[in-house]
């Protein structure tokens, strides 16, 4: 009689353990699922996902031994696997981000070069005049950026090429 009671108690304890594992697995799996679909944070969800899969698997093996219900355990396992897959897919997302991040400095450099070229092109025919006054002393710097005319004048005067002429007049 006592032996029967003990066996019954043992079976009940085993059933409870399986059920508790199932509950833990299902809750962890649901939380993992919610975390997994949030971009960037989703990558961390792999950890609870694995925990949920382990809990559900252990629970399922216990349930198979004691022939207890497996509904919650299976639900937990399926949700955990799907959540982990979604979370794992974010590894590829991170890869794409890293790839994009590598291209960014080059792209910035290209844009700066383009802007520099545009500015130089705009200034090619410009005349720049800078006046500095300090007490009685006055300095005027004239930079004639008219490249074509400048080169022509230089060739005429000196017979050789020069790129910039700056005249400094002290008044």
């Amino acid at each position, binding site marked *: 009689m006592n032996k029967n009671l003990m066996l019954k108690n043992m079976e009940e304890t085993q059933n409870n353990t399986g059920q508790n594992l199932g509950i833990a697995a299902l809750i962890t799996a649901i939380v993992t699922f919610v975390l997994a679909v*949030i*971009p960037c*944070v989703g990558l961390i969800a792999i950890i609870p996902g694995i925990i949920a899969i382990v809990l559900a698997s252990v629970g399922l093996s216990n349930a198979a031994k004691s022939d207890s219900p497996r509904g919650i355990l299976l639900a937990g396992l399926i949700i955990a696997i799907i959540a982990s897959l*979604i979370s794992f897919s974010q590894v*590829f*997302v991170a890869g*794409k*981000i890293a790839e994009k991040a590598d291209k960014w400095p080059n792209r910035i450099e290209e844009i700066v070069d383009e802007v520099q070229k545009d500015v130089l092109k705009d200034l090619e025919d410009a005349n720049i005049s800078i006046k500095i006054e300090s007490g009685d002393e006055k300095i005027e710097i004239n930079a004639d950026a008219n490249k074509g005319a400048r080169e022509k004048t230089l060739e005429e005067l000196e017979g050789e090429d020069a790129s910039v002429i700056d005249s400094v007049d002290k008044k």
Partner: protein
Amino acid sequence: MVRIRKEPYLIINIFLAGIILLVMLYSGIFSPDKDNYPVTCIHEQLTGVPCVSCGLSHSFSLIVRGRVEEAYEWNIYGMRVFIFFMAQFFMRILFSYIYIRYTETRKQLINLDIAGSSAIFLISFWHFFAWIVRFS
């Protein structure tokens, strides 16, 4: 009298409601003005461009404080996700009550809960799904 320990559905509901309360507590503790959130976005750190879930914590904190318009500025989907969590919180309480009160409809109730929660989840997180699929 229902023994909660023998009802997995009730235990799961209690835990999920607790987790949602923790999310609300997180939003309440961390201030959007001080910007002291522990979670940072990898995408924004690497590229300088914010991702679709950037500003979600700010958005939640602002909604909790009643500054809804500012919350929209931080993350356009923040309100939708916040409503999902709030709906889930009240659903856990309501469904638990119905589960205890009307014992004969338990199976239908659980099925309705699974279907309803899945639908709300998909509607709320649809843009995040789309973003992951586009990048993957």
